[in-house]
Structure formats: structure tokens, C-alpha cells
């Protein structure tokens, strides 16, 4: 029995478009990213997005186990999305459930088009996404962190993948739904873009929407992704910037 009692807020969004966390419809929650946070992984990223806390790690290219899974002409990309038992209000039983199996698949397919897999034939690239704390939008947070972990691992890529969710609350299309909107809103649409070409590599929709609302949702997702992309690039540059400053300091 959970020790948390959840209450639906009386108003999800006001007439002026103010949301339960005080944001306007187009506002993102704060995002903070750090790459290279784990010593053992070949690449890693830690991401805070609203109340979400996500760790992503990449191992590879490495030997494939079991061997028969190896592909002769390209790398095998594997992905595991997993929620920590303490990531949810009620303890989640450890291990994969049907939801995490599906999310592992859509995250893998969101990242797949961004990687030059043909450069690493016969190997495996393993991506692990651990949700330490969940607060709506964990899959898009996972994709955003995982893409940086791949880049941090030095894997050759076409570009970064950036993901964001948009949703519908009554007649409003809102960017980056929060917990209340995720729980009681009318529609939820996670989207991922390969930013170089603005190709969509993940798209799910859950809940009814008019064609107009859907078009607007994609437009808003694209704009929000542009903002998140800047945060990603900055996070990727930061460790090198630190090295550059250290060299300058020593030069003096």
C-alpha cells in the first residue's frame, strides 16, 4: 500500500495559461547536464530536468555476447531503460516490466539513426539509461542524456539527438508536461529529433488531438528541442573548456 496520497489539482491550467507549477504553456522546466560522470563507462551523462534525475552510460564498441548476435556489417546497438526502485512515489519492483521493455525499444530506435553503426562492424554498443527519480518525461530525458553519453564515448555520430515531450491540457498545447499534466492531462507526445537534419527519430502520441493541435504540438516540440540542443552542446563542450582554461593558466 503506498504511503502517498495523490490529489488531482482543481485547475490544471488557468484561463491565462498558467500551469500547476507556475509555467506558461511554452516554458521548459530547468535542465542541467553533465557529461563524463562515471569512470568505468566509455561515455556517460547525468541530467536533471525538472524533478527528473537520469544517468546514461555507454559501453562500446565492444565484443558482442552472445556472439551469434553480432552483425557482420555494422555494430549492434542495445539499449536498456530502467527505473530505480526509489525513483517513484511507490517503490517500483526492480527489473524490467512491459513498459520499460517498450521504452528501451523506442529509445534505441530514437538513437539508431544518429550513429554511424557501419564504422564498427561485429561489435556491440550498449546504452544504459537509469531513471533515478521520475517526474514526467523520463523517456525524453533518457534519450537526451543517452545521446550525450554516446558522444562522450567518442562514437561517430551524424549529430546529437534531442528529445522533448509536448502535451495537451484541455484546449492548450503545452511544452514539457509536468507530473500533474502527465497524470491528468488529455494528451502526451514525446518527440525526438536528430538535430542536424531535424529528422524525427521518436514519436509517440497518447490521447486525442485535432490536426491543428497536432501540427502546433510538433512545431512547439521543434522549438523546444532547439533550446535543449544548446544545453546539450554546452554540456559536451564544458570538460574541454576546463582543459583549455587549465592550459591557459599553466601557460601564464
Amino acid at each position, binding site marked *: *500500500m*503506498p*504511503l*502517498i*496520497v495523490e490529489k488531482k489539482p482543481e485547475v490544471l491550467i488557468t484561463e491565462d495559461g498558467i500551469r500547476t507549477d507556475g509555467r506558461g504553456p511554452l516554458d521548459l522546466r530547468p535542465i542541467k547536464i553533465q557529461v563524463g560522470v*562515471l*569512470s*568505468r*563507462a*566509455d561515455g*556517460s551523462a547525468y541530467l536533471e530536468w525538472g524533478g527528473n*534525475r537520469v*544517468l546514461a*552510460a555507454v*559501453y*562500446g564498441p*565492444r565484443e558482442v555476447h552472445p556472439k551469434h548476435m553480432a552483425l557482420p556489417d555494422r555494430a549492434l546497438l542495445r539499449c*536498456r531503460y*530502467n527505473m*530505480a*526502485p*526509489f*525513483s*517513484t*512515489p*511507490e*517503490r517500483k519492483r*526492480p*527489473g*524490467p516490466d512491459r513498459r520499460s521493455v517498450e521504452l528501451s525499444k523506442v529509445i534505441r530506435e530514437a538513437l539508431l539513426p544518429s550513429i554511424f553503426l557501419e564504422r564498427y562492424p561485429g561489435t556491440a554498443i*550498449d546504452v*544504459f539509461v*537509469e531513471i*533515478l*527519480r*521520475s517526474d514526467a518525461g523520463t523517456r525524453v530525458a533518457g534519450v537526451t542524456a543517452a545521446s550525450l553519453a554516446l558522444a562522450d564515448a567518442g562514437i561517430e555520430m551524424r549529430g546529437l539527438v534531442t528529445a522533448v515531450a509536448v502535451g495537451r491540457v484541455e484546449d492548450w498545447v503545452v511544452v514539457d508536461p509536468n507530473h500533474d499534466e502527465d497524470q491528468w492531462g488529455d494528451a502526451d507526445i514525446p518527440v525526438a529529433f536528430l538535430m542536424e537534419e531535424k529528422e524525427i527519430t521518436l514519436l509517440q502520441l497518447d490521447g486525442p488531438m485535432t490536426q491543428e493541435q497536432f501540427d502546433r504540438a510538433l512545431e512547439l516540440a521543434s522549438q523546444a528541442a532547439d533550446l535543449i540542443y544548446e544545453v546539450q552542446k554546452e554540456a559536451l563542450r564544458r570538460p574541454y573548456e576546463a582543459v583549455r582554461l587549465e592550459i591557459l593558466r599553466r601557460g601564464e
Partner: protein
Amino acid sequence: MLDERIAAELVGGYIRELAASGQRKDGRAFDEIREIKIRPGTFTKAEGEAWVSLGATQVLVGVKADVGTPFPDTPDKGVLISNVELLPLASPTFEPGPPDENAIEMARVVDRALRGSNAIDMEALAIKSGELVYMIFLDMYALDHDGNIIDAFALGSLVALSRTKIPVVEVTEEGEMVVKEETFDLPLRDLPITFTFIKIGDALMLDPTLEEELVSDAAITISIDSSGRVCSIQKRHGSFRVDEIKRAVSIARSKYPEVEKILREQGGLV
């Protein structure tokens, strides 16, 4: 990536040579513990949590509280369930899947350290005799494995438990369960600290790195409570002589105040 067992083979001779001359690869003394850091911030939805690093080893421990029926033989005691996840994210050798024997052993060793020292007041976790008690889930998550995860888990568990605030649950006369908004602190009465030693030749080393673990001949984990008593021991692989175990116990007891001080200062334990 180079298989770590091959790497251990390559560096093993060097580590053994150093050990024979009283040295370690990272320059530490045999009884020196790597730097313990408790990361500030909130990372989970747990009722108590701690992100702890021991050198390059990192773990995240979360305590979740729930209610349920007590075990029939302990109707007036809460329930503690300890679980270790050796995530594949933490090491190239960890595989996805249910906890393996290593994970289960670690969880049970930490669990025994807590029980052996009566660290948690289990009687205070009963709500209604024989019917309703608090259940405490101690989930230990390995994030980055550079050796001695078990001591990192034990330290993380103490910090997480000491920070745990549980919603008050009451049972009305009609037998209905009510969850209150107010919370109470998990009653932590002792601080059992574990000390893991490995043996390389004749050398006993505290807090081994992964490389040291991989070349070690034997390993043992000893937990000490606040009054200096030994409250649990687990010999892991290999074998020790009696005098070596006695030495390990006395080193562990002598190191206790130092680690306790770090826990109190950094972890905010009272």
C-alpha cells in the same frame, strides 16, 4: 575495451611486488581508506537517500517506506528488506538481469551489519500488533565500480537511513488505515560500519580498488558498531589465517572513529 581480467593479469605482478614492499599502486597505506564523499542534492523519490563515493566507486542508496503485514514470528516488529542492484551501467562486467550471487551476498552482508548491531529500532516500526507494520526497503544501487562496492553500500545505507522520514500511519477504531501528512525519523540507534580487507601475499589491505580486488588472494568484510563490537563478518573468496583475521578486526576497530567522524560531519548524522 580491454577485458578487466586481462588487465588485472597484466598489472597483477606489479601490484603483488608493491604489496611485498609495503606499498599500493595508488600510494595509500595498507590501512588507508579512499576519500569518502557524500554528494549533496536530491536524486530520488525515496524517503531517505545518499549518493556516496569511495574513491572512484559511486553508489546511490534509497530507502522507501511502505506498510504491510509483519512476519508471524515477529508480530511487533517492522520489516527490513535489503536489495542490491549491480547495474550494467556501473561496470563492463555487470550484466542485466536479476541479482546474481554477488549482489545477493552484498545485500545480505549489509543487512546483517544493520541487524547485528540492532541499528534500526524494529519495535518502533510496528503500527498494530500482528496486523500492520512499516516495511523498510533498502535499495542499494551501484553506479560506478572501482572496487569495494560493499563498504560504499554500507556507508550509503547509514546516511540514507539516518535521513529517512516516514509518513505517520494510524489505524482508526474501525480498522481503517490513515496516512498523515506529518513524518517521523526512522529510529536509528547505532552506526555499524563495514571494513573490507583483501589479502595479497602476506599483506592485508583495507578498502581495495578494483585492480587490487581482482588480484587478491582472499577478501573479508567486518562490521563494527559504535561500542567497538564486531557485529558481523563475511569471509568472501580465499582463505585467511587466524592471526590475519584478528589483525583485520583490530584494524577495523581502530579505523571506526575516523569513518564515523566523516559520516557525522558530511552525512549530517547525529
